[in-house]
């Protein structure tokens, strides 16, 4: 069972996270946590100094964190992007497609289930912020 999963090769960031609200005033903070109702775009001016963004999922049914993650990656953020909270094995492959590269679930996940979840989709239909080529691109590169 795993209570922390990372897809990154570097060490997980250890810095204490601060709230988005206080992040703006703390010029030395490098780790921040976003809640569902908060605007990830407020972080865009600071991406260069951020090592970790935690996106909280108080309930897995609240999908705002997926947009937050994608927005950060679309803006070029390369640091650790961690999904925390009610993170279940059935969501992690979607989370990965939106740019999350580490996971800290409330309840530990079964390693085999995690592996199966990441391996589930042979291909994908959409271009997002992971590096997977969508099916439409593959179709036309073959032709």
């Amino acid at each position, binding site marked *: 069972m795993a209570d922390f999963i990372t897809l990154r090769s570097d060490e997980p960031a250890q810095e204490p996270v601060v709230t988005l609200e206080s992040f703006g005033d703390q010029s030395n903070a490098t780790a921040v946590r976003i809640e569902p109702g908060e605007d990830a775009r407020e972080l865009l001016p600071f991406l260069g100094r951020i090592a970790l963004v935690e996106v909280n999922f108080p309930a897995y*049914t609240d*999908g705002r964190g997926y947009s937050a993650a994608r927005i950060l990656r679309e803006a070029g953020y390369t640091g650790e992007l961690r999904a925390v909270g009610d993170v279940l094995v059935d969501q992690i492959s979607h989370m990965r497609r939106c740019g999350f590269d580490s996971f800290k679930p409330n309840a530990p996940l079964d390693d085999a289930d995690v592996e199966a979840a990441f391996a589930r989709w042979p291909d994908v239909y959409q271009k997002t912020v992971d590096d997977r080529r969508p099916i439409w691109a593959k179709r036309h590169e073959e032709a």
Partner: protein
Amino acid sequence: MYQYDTYDQAMVDARVEEFRDQVKRRLEGKMTEEQFRPLRLMNGLYLQLHAYMLRVAVPYGTLSARQMRMLGHIARKYDKGYGHFTTRQNIQYNWIKLSDAPDILADLASVEMHAIQTSGNCIRNISADQYAGVAADEAADPRPWAELLRQWSSFHPEFTYLPRKFKICVIASPEDRAAMRLHDIGLELVKKDGVVGARVFVGGGMGRTPMVAPEVNPFVTEDELISYVEACLRVYNRYGRRDNKYKARIKILVHELGVEEYRRQVAEEFAHMKTLGLNPPREELARIAEHFADPAYETGLSDDLDRSDPDFALWVDRNVAQHKQAGYAIVNISLKPIGGIPGDASAEQIELMADLAERYSLDELRVTHAQNIVLPYVKKAELYALWQALEANGLGEPNLDLVTDIIACPGLDYCSLANARSIPVAQKIAQRLASNGKDAEIGELKLKISGCINACGHHHAGHIGILGVDRKGTENYQLLLGGSGAEDCSLGTITGPGFDENGIVDAVEKATDLYLAQRTEGERFLDTYRRLGMAPFKEAIYG
């Protein structure tokens, strides 16, 4: 018709395996019902009043004969020998075992079908005009656009946990046969200077706060369709309300922001999104469109019909629509026999319709939002033989768009959310107005019944709508007049106090009697209502 390539098939197969695994984990106790529920819902599996219910997607309502036959097979093998075609162009089975569900999905996958995203707060099955590709009045074929959207929306990682369900509809004719503006996003394909693009309407819907979608963008081309729609969804995913599920649909967001502000936010997001390379190349829409190319129509066919059999002639006048190709016709098979259950078909009937599609309609069928079936490619010379086969199997009811062609949700006979039964009301109204011949006299009248405020039976959009409510533990029915789901889209108005089951049948008859007495030449019920207003109808019903 679209045919899966190995990519599409692999995706659907993967989904079957995923769900097989999830069902196993549920039955083994590795998952609680709370965790499992949204997963089964994303595979169309509800828990209803009597059993599990499976909703199978019929993408944009189009089916091959082989697929239709599989729907019959599932009804026979896994259910109690019938299925229910719905207003979302899907089919529902009412008596499914959880332990069978993975096998059913595997059977469906063997004919390129699935139940993916037929429930849950995700992008649902895309609906479309049932006459797509054969209507004389369309600007372009909506099916390739719908298929492009189907693929894009399948397993979309960002939009799987939206505030609420999300329904998209594509049409391409000025005549709206699919209630396009009552969808979360409605697309109407139009041609401008020879280029096809979509008018985009956002924020329609029914339920407890019905709204007609306003236009958000007058013209989005194929090159930007996906990024534009994605921008519409992202604004909704981020800012749609999540504090109250009755205010969570996009219609509320658009309404609360105002369409100007919503449009502005989408434009801003779109400006960013179109830089991300999200749109498939034109070759992809072209590849899909090839699957929907016109069949090799026979030319030189006659448009003449032998109308000497009056029953046949009546059916042709009522149920057969104009085809774009000379010598061909579009046939509507009514699933509304007088006194029957609207939208239900037995396994035998489903299989028969599959056979008839193979023999007479180039292998293809459509499901309509009015819960009927369409055979889109019938030669006029073969209409008589087709009609005889339908007639012999209880599928020849000549009542398309008449007051007996009722849309009705399952209501309290099947649905655990219901306040009142819908089906018995539909049966009684049809029987009453058919037995005294008024149905024929009245002509077009769209009557729609929902068993509760969720409006699965489109009651807001009925020329006459009926809504089941709970009045101190007994079934009660409210009457609405003046709705329309067509191009003259409008929402019905409640007449006044509700009725019991017999009372609502009387009230409907009184409203139609007033219409018959007051109509002018060529006026439909709806037109007369719009001209006269509510007052005289109220008087006739309650006076």
